[in-house]
């Protein structure tokens, strides 16, 4: 009788175990499209079988286990971080590109061309008041174009700083959310599959903003570090970051230039140099490297200011070395005056402050070079040659002024093009990492070994083929004519 009851108990235990398995399966099906959810498995544990001792065997459901693999999760997060960076690059560089018009129909390029035409017309009629007035008007247009570009770039810099603040705020908000999830785990929800899914979905969201390292601790909570160094979340506490302008360096070449943006940890330590990847790294790169390349910072004048300074100072030099009158009427020759004024104390403010001198009048423009031989339109001719210069004094690093500006614009175009390609590639890399995560969930050691052997063999062959294709495609592009 007791054996019969034992057998019935054993059968009931088995039914309980299979019910548990069905529950897990049902849970997996129901959460198939839940963000961050990882398949759960139910292990069945064999019970001892010894009829003599009244042990009837059977199975017992052991603990439900998640097939989540931390290594695969990290891979997805790393690729997501790179995608976030590339997407932010595209967004920022699109805004930057809109500041440059290379069609020649507006902006600095157009203003340069119009001024060079005015110089040329003045060279043909050096005593014409109309030609001189046109030169002043076109020079004013050039100054205005520089001011507008500098203002546009400065506004973009302000927007970037604002976005940095917002990004840091978002990171802090998500870190707080993760700390709250950790609190739930510490309160006993350690095996809650839904909570686990929410944590991983949130970690993926956070990885778009910055490179993070999330490590599962023995108590089931997740510790999150910014690039493996700066604590963001430990147990039920989050540690907020802060974005702030870096302090000015009085010993820098341009102490009055715009300062860099820095990221500070919760303890006030500057962790800017440790930030890599994600939207945060992209915005820092724009704020601290790309935009200062145009507008300058405490260590460099920036290409826009360099162009404005070289151009304005060279035009002024040519005009002040010339003469308004040659003294042939018995009076002393009258020298020329400078056409442009600009901030001479801060070389990161040249483009913004560039203007035509408010006191200059058409008759003060010096067209004459005394020589010998004296040339009545010598200065005007020298100015008109700035459109197509051959002398190094008329160039910046071997480039004409319009070529230099064209390079500034095309650099942005190239960066944007690369960023667009990077987004496309990175979207594939994220999908690949997600597929890998799906495939390796819960595989056995034997399966792992087999997959690795298969991969190694396929990788070597594909790698060689890609090397061949790389060379072939490059050669093909080189032999084809450009349209």
């Amino acid at each position, binding site marked *: 009788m007791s054996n019969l009851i034992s057998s019935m108990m054993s059968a009931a235990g088995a039914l309980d175990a299979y019910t548990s398995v069905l529950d897990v399966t049902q849970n997996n099906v129901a959460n198939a499209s839940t963000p961050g959810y990882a398949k759960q498995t139910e292990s069945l544990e064999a019970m001892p079988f010894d009829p003599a001792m009244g042990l009837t065997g059977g199975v017992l459901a052991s603990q439900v286990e998640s097939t989540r693999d931390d*290594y695969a999760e990290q*891979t997805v997060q790393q*690729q997501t971080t790179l995608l976030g960076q590339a997407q932010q690059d595209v967004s920022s560089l699109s805004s930057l590109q809109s500041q440059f018009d290379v069609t020649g129909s507006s902006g600095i390029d157009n203003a340069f061309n119009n001024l060079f035409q005015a110089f040329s017309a003045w060279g043909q009629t050096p005593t014409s008041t109309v030609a001189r007035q046109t030169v002043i008007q076109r020079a004013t247009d050039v100054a205005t174009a520089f001011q507008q570009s500098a203002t546009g770039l400065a506004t973009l810099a302000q927007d970037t700083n604002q976005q940095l603040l917002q990004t840091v705020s978002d990171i802090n908000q998500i870190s707080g959310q993760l700390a709250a999830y950790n609190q739930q785990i510490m309160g006993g929800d350690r095996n809650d599959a839904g909570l686990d899914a929410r944590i991983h979905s949130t970690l993926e969201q956070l990885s778009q903003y910055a490179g993070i390292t999330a490590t599962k601790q023995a108590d089931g909570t997740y510790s999150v570090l910014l690039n493996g160094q700066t604590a963001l979340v430990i147990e039920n506490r989050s540690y907020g970051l802060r974005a702030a302008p870096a302090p000015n360096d009085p010993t820098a070449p341009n102490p009055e230039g715009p300062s860099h943006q820095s990221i500070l940890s919760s303890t006030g330590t500057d962790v800017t140099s440790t930030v890599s990847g994600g939207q945060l790294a992209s915005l820092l790169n724009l704020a601290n490297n790309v935009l200062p390349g145009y507008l300058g910072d405490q260590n460099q004048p920036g290409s826009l200011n360099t162009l404005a300074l070289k151009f304005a100072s060279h035009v002024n030099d040519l005009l002040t070395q010339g003469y308004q009158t040659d003294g042939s009427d018995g009076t002393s020759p009258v020298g020329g005056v400078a056409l442009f004024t600009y901030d001479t104390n801060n070389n990161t403010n040249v483009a913004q402050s560039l203007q035509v001198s408010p006191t200059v009048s058409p008759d003060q423009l010096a067209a004459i070079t005394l020589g010998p031989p004296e040339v009545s339109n010598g200065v005007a001719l020298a100015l008109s040659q700035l459109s197509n210069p051959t002398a190094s004094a008329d160039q910046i690093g071997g480039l004409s002024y319009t070529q230099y500006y064209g390079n500034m614009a095309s650099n942005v175009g190239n960066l944007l093009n690369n960023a667009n*390609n990077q987004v*496309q*590639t990175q979207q*594939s*890399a994220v*999908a*690949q*990492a997600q*597929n*890998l995560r799906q*495939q*390796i969930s819960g595989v056995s*050691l034997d399966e*792992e*070994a*087999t*997959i*690795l*052997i*298969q*991969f*190694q063999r*396929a*990788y070597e*062959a*594909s*790698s060689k*083929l*890609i090397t*061949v*294709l*790389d060379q*072939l*495609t*490059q*050669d*093909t*592009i080189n*032999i*084809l*004519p*450009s*349209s």
Partner: protein
Amino acid sequence: VSAAHAAERLVAARSDVKRACDLLVAASPEALDGCQDALQQAVSELIDFRSKRHEIRSDPSARSTACGLRAEVLRAARLLQSLSSFYHGWNKILGSMSAGYTANGDPAPVTRHGRLCCRG
């Protein structure tokens, strides 16, 4: 053989590399085998194209197609690299789990002597 026929080789090569990229995204060992075939096909198409390239010199769109092809090749290289990094990392984890660490602190190499891999 017309210039259009030569240009088709470029388009086909690009399509092959794109297919290889899709397989690299799928990332299973079976897909990797298919990737190898697709890349091999692309190499053949390109070699075929190069033998007829004199016929295409006047076609300005060919360069644009070739640039597109190169972008796909670079994407495939990047995807293969990320796949390689993933498996190398995994191999290291497997090494440390199955045989511990070396005296230098590196994961122990995974030995697979005598292992037979059967696929049906």
